[in-house]
């Protein structure tokens, strides 16, 4: 039971980053390879605010989210948008360049040392039904859950959420009704950056903060997104949770897998899903237009 909760906690971290990937893929049709690095950068900013400038955790959290949002919008407007007209590959290379750039930037500003970052949640455990469950795990799940709910409300019940959905499924038509499609896409990037930041800040306390914090996490996020269906936000969340619990249980109870093979396990998931049902659990088949 404890492992399930722990699995759900890591799963929600994967889910958050996977959701970011899905958001961007739905909006602009590309995989943002730099998503992980952007999240790491956000986490460093949060760390810097709390450690170097003595801020309290939650204000720093909030400010980091705002900065990440602005950063995401800025990156889309400045770097991605001019390249959108070209081939997909061009944008992929740009995101790869961004990955390299941000990684280097982090090392330049903060050096490559491993640092410890505090967790907003106490590290005690709590007894529920006779099982000791970490409060941190519960807190992690809670934060991600809250974020997902807020996003869902945004997309389903607000005018701007509707506009964003319209821009993603049918940009040409959206323009005809007056939606500023390009800004909607930038908003998507901004939100994705926020999700990534949340993911990073939740992961950092246990994984320690170093420039490569998100590299492995990015792969888990890919696996979760593919499992859930790369265009399905619901799928990303569900996929992340399943992956988190699944990998955790496998790692604990199946000896031969152990802790090392979690990453290849995730990769195996990606491959198997892509081979068997590329559209994942919740995606739908692409209809090829002639």
């Amino acid at each position, binding site marked *: 039971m404890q492992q399930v909760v722990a699995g759900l906690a890591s799963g929600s971290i994967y889910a958050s980053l996977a959701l970011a990937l899905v958001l961007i*893929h739905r909006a602009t049709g*590309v*995989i943002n390879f730099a998503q992980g690095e952007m999240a790491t950068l956000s986490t460093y900013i949060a760390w810097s605010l709390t450690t170097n400038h003595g801020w309290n955790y939650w204000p720093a959290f909030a400010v980091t989210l705002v900065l990440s949002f602005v950063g995401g919008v800025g990156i889309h407007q400045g*770097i991605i948008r*001019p*390249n959108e007209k*070209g*081939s*997909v*590959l*061009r944008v*992929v*290379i*740009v995101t*790869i*360049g*961004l*990955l*390299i*750039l*941000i*990684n*280097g*930037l*982090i*090392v*330049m*500003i903060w*050096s*490559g040392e491993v640092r410890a970052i505090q967790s907003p949640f106490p590290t005690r455990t709590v007894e529920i039904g006779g099982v000791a469950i970490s409060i941190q795990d519960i807190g992690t799940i809670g934060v991600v859950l809250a974020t997902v709910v807020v996003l869902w409300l945004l997309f389903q019940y607000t005018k701007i959420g509707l506009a964003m959905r319209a821009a993603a499924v049918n940009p040409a038509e959206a323009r005809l009704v007056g939606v500023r499609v390009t800004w909607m896409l930038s908003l998507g990037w901004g939100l994705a950056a926020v999700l990534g930041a949340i993911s990073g800040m939740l992961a950092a306390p246990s994984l320690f903060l170093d420039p490569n914090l998100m590299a492995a996490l990015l*792969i888990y996020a*890919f696996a979760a997104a*593919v499992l859930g269906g*790369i265009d399905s936000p619901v799928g990303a969340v569900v996929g992340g949770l399943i992956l988190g619990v699944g990998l955790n249980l496998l790692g604990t109870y199946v000896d031969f897998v152990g802790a090392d*093979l979690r*990453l*290849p396990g995730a*990769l*195996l998931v*990606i*491959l198997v899903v*892509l*081979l068997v049902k*590329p559209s994942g659990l919740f995606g739908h088949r*692409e209809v*090829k237009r*002639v």
Partner: protein
Amino acid sequence: MSAASRRFAPLAAFLALAVVVLVLPSFVSAFRAQQFAYVAIYLVAIIGLNILTGYTGQISLGHGAFMAIGGYTTAILMADHGVKDIWTIPVAALVTGVVGFLFGIPALRLSGLYLALATFAIAVSMPAVIKRFEGFTGGGGGINLFGLPELTASLTPVEVLGQDLVFNDWLYYLCWTIALFGYVIAWLFLGGRTGLALRAVRDSETAAQSSGVSLPRYKTLAFGVSAAYAGVAGSLFAIATTFVNPDTFPVALSILLLVGVVVGGLGSLVGLIAGAIFIQFLPIWSQEVSKSPGAPSVVSGLILIALMFVLPMGVAGLVARLKSLTKR
């Protein structure tokens, strides 16, 4: 440009390249020559990747893994079976080609980014897989080729065409001979009906199909050929570094190869030299700008992004634009 000169222009350019390659070592330091040998190796790899991505539009972020297969094939044959290094190269090509072809079959079901993800997953997991099969691959410790008698010119200079070549020179000429050879083969392969079919597949699969082009055949063929090229490159890489271990072919390599193809210009053979040079020298140039920690990456990243703005169609695009200017 008259029709005749248009036909001869590529030939002339090729010959010019061959001449430059031939005389370069006399003009540069031994260290530089070695770097250019690596350029040749990357060139072989990206010619192959170009056939896959530039021509049939199948994105692969996993060609480093194919290089690994080629490299390990060579290493194992040399270290465990006493095969001379040159003879391992065609074997590596064959093995990797078959693997690539077999991978091309399930890959038919994947398009665009899904394929990119799948190949990315393979590239990431390759080092772990190599470590897992320790008995075969020497695990984390790798396989050492240095000093083996099967490694040509490693101990004593080898005689080629009446000249004595030390290891570095021998390596340089070996790599470039194969690279130029590979160029010619690719050019012939892509020039005729096959090339036309491949390009049709890239531009519109549905249209190609309705014109009678057998998609599965050409797409898997492209995978196989492309992998074979990568296998040869991996093989040469192993010979050049005289050592292989799981980290010799990391994910970064796969990414760099794709970057090289895009920078060179997809779907064209012309710019690939520039792409190969880019792969080899980008890290070096970035370091030259600044050595402080993290700075080279920042520079590399900036250059990469800037290139996509300035040369969206790669170097080949630049060449095409220049050509159209001279036509007027």
